[in-house]
């Protein structure tokens, strides 16, 4: 009771400090005046009465002070005084203050950036109301000898789930794909659509404005309700924020749909890429005709736990009821031998996170922490040097009665002030660097979630209250800590000694090897930390170089790529072949084009695979999965892939002719080791309903391996077939240009529109750009760590310089004596350099030991680091040694300029 009212009262006073002071003034004045009146009544003159009353009352200031104390303001008052004093003394040494603030800003800024990345991934909740009860439901396939694989659902399975499950209070299926949009201000455009159940938006708590969400009947009968909801950005950008958009008609893949609403700003669906949404019931018309009947596992399913149901209960029901419902409508996707199918669920919050990205983020955070440590050590050294220089002042304070606590508090307040200033700058630094980090590699730092769920990570780093709070707390704590440590050191006994003039000997500055001081410890620590950071950066850099130098197997220069997707229902299966042929003809007619081809996937993006059946080789177990490429006849020429045996594909390999395929080296070696694969026959399975399993394909050629996966992954066996024989209507067009490939893009776009005016080209990128993207994550990590290492090197150099300079200053007497006794300047220089070198070597030794541990940690965390090459360690050690010695050189030189007469005379 007492504490609560005391707290409330204190809070009230703190909030209105000036009012409080003014009120006291008023109250006291009233008191004095009333007393004066009473005194007047006893016969004194007004002037006399006032004087007497004032005298009686006593000092107003003293009353005010006791008043403040009575209201609990004492600690704040004392803090205010301390802060003012600290600010004044900091102002007297501006050089030191600026250096200290910058050090803190660096440490806080870098760590706030790392924290913002981690916080976005781990701490920030999903942007949906009551997101804790949202779950992602998936199937699980366990093959003997491998890990369980999560998979999505077919639509019939989803419908079975919806009717059977009771622990989930709402289920919605969604699937995302690109569609051609016509209508609105811009020309035809390629947009991302999510095909969703009617309950999708309400499940996520999203309300369209203007307009409305889908109603349940709109998802029931296929094709009956052609409605669509636009995304906010699309409405702004493509439709000019038309206020009459609700009720307007747009065309998706040449199907007319009515706009019924616009989603709120910031919502891009669970894939975080959606530009618009339409009901699953419209998918057969707009997108795939068999979207709702196929047994292929397209659909992601999200649900909400029924009130009072726990995740475990729901999971248990999924494993039994859910799995059974799914099995009942499995259709053509039969479990092969030994496979076990089940079903499970994950909270949405977990499903969106990516473990590998988390590891990269932790490495980043670790490096940032190291930088902070270095900055703090550096700052501590600076403060220590300053404290020792002001030892007399501290001794006087102690003599006047300041206890240990007061001295510590003074140190903490000084450090805290530095921390606040440093933190403010550091926050700005964090803002800027977070944006830079995200721009470099959004996937790796924002996290790329498991692809099976078609789920975004919702982890884009941003500056929110969590990050700001972290920055403030860290800067205050770091500053206070850095300030307290030197104060801890100064035991009262030392102060007595310090009061006497001319403290001497090797206990000054960095001391000697036999009696190292705290200052020398900070120098050693900085060198060690810098070494660790540099080693880490060196390892990553080496790994990155290795990645980049891997031969891609083709020539990426001069090639530009873009994608096209003819409207599916019209151009399905082999009907797309003539269209693609015309597109290729038009493109090859564009001046500046050397050759052109199509392919479903480009290098660095593995997107297509099929099971392979070889005649005469039945054998037990699963058929091998091979990479599959649906290419044009000029494909190998466009990409510069060397033909090793046999022949390439030709325009004659078309529908109606015998089916042929060209394979890569890995395939030849894997399936026909030591024999000639040319003339062998294979069949392909699966794949979209138009690669019929009973058409034999003959191998006619072998080409070199090409990197289709992630750099560093082993090559897959790849099978190239002519797009005229096996056709996908949507494909990538690859164009080799005579000159600069990006200059051709407008002409290429026009050429495609000539063939079909509703056919936009999208995802336009040169091959070089794709190559750079493939390693973007690695590059970002390397860049970040190298920056940290460079910072660490700078800090270590500055730290060593500062400490050595201070040592020289402290030991002027000793140097003067040496010079007077006949030491040459060179000897003095050597003396100082030796001191510095000893420190550096000690630091290097400790750092080297720590680096061994680091190498192990890094290899565990980032798979592609690998073994160290021989040059990393010596190069790093050498670099540090050179920098440290250079940092010692200047103080050594100034040591030789000490005038012995001057220093000896001072005493």
């Amino acid at each position: 009771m007492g504490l609560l009212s005391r707290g409330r009262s204190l809070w009230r006073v703190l909030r209105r400090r000036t009012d409080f002071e003014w009120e006291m003034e008023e109250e006291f004045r009233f008191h004095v005046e009333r007393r004066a009146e009473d005194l007047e009544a006893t016969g004194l003159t007004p002037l006399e009465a006032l004087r007497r009353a004032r005298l009686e009352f006593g000092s107003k200031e003293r009353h005010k002070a006791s008043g403040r104390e009575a209201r609990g303001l004492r600690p704040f008052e004392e803090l205010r005084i301390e802060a003012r004093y600290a600010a004044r003394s900091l102002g007297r040494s501006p050089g030191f203050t600026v250096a200290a603030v910058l050090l803190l800003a660096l440490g806080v800024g870098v760590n706030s950036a790392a924290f913002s990345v981690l916080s976005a991934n781990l701490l920030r909740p999903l942007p949906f109301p009551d997101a804790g009860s949202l779950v992602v439901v998936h199937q699980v396939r366990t093959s003997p000898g491998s890990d369980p694989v999560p998979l999505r659902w077919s639509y019939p399975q989803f419908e079975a789930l919806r009717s059977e499950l009771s622990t989930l209070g709402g289920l919605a299926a969604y699937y995302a794909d690109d569609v051609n949009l016509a209508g609105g201000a811009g020309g035809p455009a390629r947009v991302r659509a999510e095909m969703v159940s009617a309950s999708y938006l309400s499940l996520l708590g999203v309300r369209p404005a203007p307009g409305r969400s889908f109603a349940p009947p709109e998802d029931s009968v296929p094709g009956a309700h052609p409605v669509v909801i636009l995304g906010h950005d699309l409405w702004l950008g493509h439709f000019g924020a038309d206020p009459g958009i609700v009720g307007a008609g747009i065309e998706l893949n040449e199907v007319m749909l009515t706009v019924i609403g616009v989603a709120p700003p910031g919502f891009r669906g669970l894939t975080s890429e959606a530009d618009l949404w339409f009901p699953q019931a419209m998918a057969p018309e707009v997108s795939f005709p068999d979207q709702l009947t196929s047994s292929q596992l397209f659909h992601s399913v999200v649900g909400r736990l029924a009130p009072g149901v726990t995740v475990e209960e729901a999971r248990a029901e999924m494993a039994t009821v859910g799995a059974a419902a799914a099995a009942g409508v499995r259709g053509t996707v039969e479990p092969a031998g030994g496979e076990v199918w089940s079903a499970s669920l994950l909270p949405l919050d977990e499903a969106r996170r990516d473990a590998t990205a988390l590891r990269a983020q932790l490495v980043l955070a670790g490096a940032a922490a190291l930088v902070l440590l270095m900055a703090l050590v550096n700052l501590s050294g600076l403060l220590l040097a300053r404290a020792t220089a002001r030892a007399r002042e501290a001794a006087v304070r102690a003599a006047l009665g300041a206890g240990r606590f007061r001295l510590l508090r003074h140190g903490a307040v000084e450090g805290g002030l530095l921390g606040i200033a440093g933190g403010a700058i550091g926050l700005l630094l964090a803002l800027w660097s977070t944006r830079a980090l995200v721009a470099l590699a959004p996937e790796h730092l924002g996290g790329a979630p498991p692809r099976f769920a078609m789920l975004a990570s919702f982890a884009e780093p941003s500056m929110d209250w969590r990050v700001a709070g972290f920055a403030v707390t860290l800067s205050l704590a770091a500053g206070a800590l850095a300030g307290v440590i030197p104060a801890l050191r100064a035991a009262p006994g030392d102060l007595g000694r310090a009061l006497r003039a001319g403290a001497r000997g090797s206990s000054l500055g960095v001391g000697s090897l036999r009696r190292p001081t705290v200052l020398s410890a900070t120098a050693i620590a900085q060198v060690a930390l810098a070494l660790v950071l540099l080693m880490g950066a060196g390892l990553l850099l080496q790994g990155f170089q290795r990645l980049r130098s891997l031969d891609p197997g083709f020539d990426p220069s001069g090639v530009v790529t873009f994608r096209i997707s003819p409207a599916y229902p019209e151009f399905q299966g082999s009907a797309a072949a003539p269209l693609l042929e015309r597109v290729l003809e038009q493109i090859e007619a564009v001046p500046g084009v050397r050759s052109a081809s199509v392919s479903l996937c480009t290098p660095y993006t593995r997107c297509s695979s099929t099971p392979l059946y070889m005649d005469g080789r039945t054998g037990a177990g699963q058929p091998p999965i091979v990479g599959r490429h649906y290419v044009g006849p000029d494909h190998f020429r466009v990409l510069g892939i060397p033909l090793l045996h046999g022949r390439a594909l030709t325009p004659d390999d078309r529908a109606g002719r015998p089916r042929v395929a060209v394979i890569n080296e890995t395939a030849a070696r894997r399936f026909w080791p030591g024999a000639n694969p040319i003339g062998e026959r294979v069949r392909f399975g699966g794949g979209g309903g138009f690669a019929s399993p009973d058409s034999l394909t003959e191998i006619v050629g072998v080409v070199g391996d090409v990197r289709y996966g992630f750099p560093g992954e082993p090559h897959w066996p790849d099978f190239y077939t002519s797009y005229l024989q096996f056709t996908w209507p949507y494909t990538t067009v690859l164009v080799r240009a005579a000159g600069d490939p990006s200059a051709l893009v407008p002409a290429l776009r026009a050429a495609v529109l000539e063939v079909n005016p509703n056919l936009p080209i999208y995802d336009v990128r040169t091959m070089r750009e794709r190559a750079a993207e493939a390693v973007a994550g690695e590059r970002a990590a390397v860049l970040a760590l190298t920056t940290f290492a460079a910072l660490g090197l700078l800090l270590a150099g500055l730290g060593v310089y500062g400490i050595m300079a201070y040592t020289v200053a402290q030991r002027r007497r000793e140097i003067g004596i040496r010079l007077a006794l006949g030491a040459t300047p060179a000897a003095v220089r050597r003396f100082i350099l030796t001191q510095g070198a000893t420190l550096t070597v000690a630091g290097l030794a400790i750092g080297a030991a720590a680096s061994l541990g680091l190498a192990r940690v890094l290899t565990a965390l980032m798979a592609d680091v690998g073994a160290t090459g021989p040059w990393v360690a010596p190069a790093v050690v050498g670099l540090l040694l050179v920098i440290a010695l250079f940092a010692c050189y200047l103080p050594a030189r100034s040591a030789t300029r000490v005038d012995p007469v001057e220093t000896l005379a001072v005493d």
Partner: protein
Amino acid sequence: MTDRAELLPGTLDVLILKTVSLGKLHGYGVLLRLEQISGGALQVQQGALYPALYRLEHQGLIESEWGTSANNRRAKYYRLTAAGRRRLGEEAASWNRLASAVALVLSARPGEV
């Protein structure tokens, strides 16, 4: 002129509470009222009054508000809170107990023990 009594530390608080309980008062009024009621025996040190008032307000036993005095000047008036009333009762009871106990001891005559 009656004799002045020494004010024991700590009793000022309970005396203020009592004075204020008789009706809201400003600081100077508390001084006057105390002198009045005690017949001049109790005179509060000027330096002790306001810290005591602020302390009591801090503890939530009295509350203040600004008002106008008899001659139209702004003054801060203090009033007892419910908690203050409770505390006053407790303190008064314990004081009375103490006082009677002391009086009892002091009035013991030789031979009665």
